[in-house]
């Protein structure tokens, strides 16, 4: 068992504050831009937006090292950003252009970066993979850890419990993070789980419950969890209590299973960016003008990125059979009809 852990105080420097503010605001504006592009039908297919949950992605990145590893599910744009991919490359991937981070081959749910394994479309499947990454860290003795995220919906999946068992048995350096945004698609947690104490669902794995709207809480909890893993104590579980303003995806208005009032209440009382902003202003860590200037810079960055994402060409048809395999001789690929004989080109 762990000692009871309450976050009473931590240190926030001005630089850190500005950096977290910039990070969260960029994510916010990027996601809202994606919303806009989707409604203009420039983005198609699945698009699961993260606005409201920014403190989770920003706080986790602040609590780990660049060399640590992160894997998450399909609500992944924010983590793609915090792990180092530009807004430009993210938006261009959403619009399916060759300048996208996956060259238009992946789309919203399949973006990757060094030490970031996506972006995974099958609910819960990323969690066993996360444990595997942690196994690799342990195997290689490099002191790195893996943060494996999942939602309140995935928390009831069988493969998570198999993963908890193995991670605990082998003391894998894995931080399991449940981003509890209260709804799995349209099903509230009360209707989905016999126990909504997601931080306890790891059973023999110690768990923390964290205010996921407060970037500092998330950061400190993440540091604690990372230290726990790095010191060889095995896995740990963190439940981040958070909220998404959008529906499950762009096809979901998000108001048939919850009230507009509820969404409004969170926005006005608990918005992660406002919380940080107020904290910084009331502690004289930054001026309102300064933050406004940052907002302006971000707006420009996101607008430029959107401009790129709408003007960059789509991938050439030659890309159809590229990257089926890695480091492999070309194979013939059957096209739509017997006379359409295509050749694969592997990555290397």
């Amino acid at each position, binding site marked *: 068992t762990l000692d009871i852990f309450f976050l009473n105080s931590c240190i926030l420097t001005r630089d850190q504050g500005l950096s977290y503010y910039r990070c969260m605001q960029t994510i916010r504006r990027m996601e809202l831009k994606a919303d806009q592009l989707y409604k203009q039908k420039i983005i198609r297919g699945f698009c699961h937006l993260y606005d409201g949950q920014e403190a989770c992605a920003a706080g986790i990145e602040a609590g780990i090292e660049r060399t640590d590893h992160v894997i998450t599910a399909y609500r992944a744009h924010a983590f793609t950003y915090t792990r180092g991919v530009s807004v430009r490359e993210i938006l261009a991937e959403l619009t399916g252009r060759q300048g996208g981070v*996956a*060259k*238009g*081959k*992946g789309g919203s749910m*399949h973006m*990757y970066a060094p030490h970031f*394994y*996506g972006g*995974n*479309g*099958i609910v819960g*499947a990323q969690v*066993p*993979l996360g*444990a*595997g*990454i942690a*196994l*690799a*860290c342990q*195997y*290689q003795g490099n002191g790195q850890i893996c943060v494996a995220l999942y939602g309140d919906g995935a928390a009831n999946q069988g493969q998570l419990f*198999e*993963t908890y*068992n*193995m991670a605990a*048995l082998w003391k894998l350096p894995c931080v399991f993070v449940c981003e509890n945004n209260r709804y799995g698609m349209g099903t509230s947690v009360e209707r989905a789980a016999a126990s909504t104490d997601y931080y306890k669902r790891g059973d023999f794995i110690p768990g923390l419950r964290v205010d996921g709207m407060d970037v500092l809480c998330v950061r400190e909890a993440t540091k604690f969890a990372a230290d726990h893993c790095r010191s060889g104590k095995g896995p740990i579980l963190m439940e981040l209590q958070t909220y998404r303003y959008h529906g499950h995806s762009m096809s979901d208005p998000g108001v048939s299973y919850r009230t507009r009032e509820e969404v409004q209440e969170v926005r006005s009382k608990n918005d992660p960016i406002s919380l940080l902003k107020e904290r910084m202003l009331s502690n004289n860590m930054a001026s309102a003008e300064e933050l406004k200037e940052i907002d302006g810079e971000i707006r420009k960055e996101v607008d430029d990125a959107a401009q790129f994402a709408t003007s960059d060409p789509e991938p050439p048809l030659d890309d159809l059979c*590229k*990257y*089926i*395999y*890695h*480091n*492999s*001789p070309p*194979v*013939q*690929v059957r096209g739509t009809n*017997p006379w359409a004989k295509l050749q694969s080109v*592997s*990555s*290397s």
Partner: protein
Amino acid sequence: QGSFIDALVVLQMMVRDALNQAMDEELERDERVFLLGEEVAQYDGAYKVSRGLWKKYGDQRIIDTPISEVRAGLRPICEFMTFNFSMQAIDQVINSAAKTCYMSAGFQAVPIVFRGPNGSSAGVAAQHSQCFAAWYAHCPGLKVVSPWNSEDAKGLLKAAIRDDNPVVFMENELMYGVPFEMSEEALSKDFVLPIGKAKIERPGNHVTLVSHSRCVGHCLDAAAVLAKEGIECEVINLRSIRPMDTDAIEASVMKTNHLVTVEGGWPQFGVGAEICAKIMEGPAFNYLDAPVTRVTGVDIPMPYAKILEDNSVPQIKDIIFSIKKTLNV
């Protein structure tokens, strides 16, 4: 003046030992390679394929797992006790392994081998007897390999381990204990067979037999019987189901004008069905003197009673019968 006789040193090796040797050599060669699966370590493997490896390489490299999973920047060999159990993990094989290189535009390669016994065994009944060749070979992004003899087993497993892509490596439980000659070349540490190339096990002019895994042996047995009647069968051992060596099949059919496919799996949407489609779409079609014949497992869940089980899979007499029908003799 002495006389020197060149003695051809030939060693007999069972398929399971060839697989063991392949893994041993590759574990030694690359420390990123490791083996995980149910009972592979302390139990020496459910079918003893991994015997001795845990003693030699220890807990870090040979891992007993409670059940299916994982990959990372390492090169895992993931053993399924049988491919029937792979269905528990099939989402990971297809959606996490097969598709990732493509979805990431080549950024994230998945160098993993999924291996284990596939297809029918003896008396293990319906849930433990299915052939998954067609299911896995259906999916782009995977390579699917099906060795027959010890040389296949060793050379193809080494190739699979060295391949930077997810390879489904389908063994056969009934073949584990069968000894085959191994040439000196095959015994060397660098003996690697190319994935995607078939082998002509027996040349012939009258009919092409295409098969994989255990049925290759049945085809050779049928060919031996028919040779006495003056019918010369060309027996092709596919070795790879995906990519499949279509060129080899076509070249053979263009010579023999007759094609019979033989597999243990079910007929619908199976390996033979795919070969038929490929032949129809290619140059060899015009050389056929008869439609292609498929010899397959019976389209039923595998029964338990021996007499029923024996009659659920292609027997040598079924192959002979089908060849004669195809040749109209």
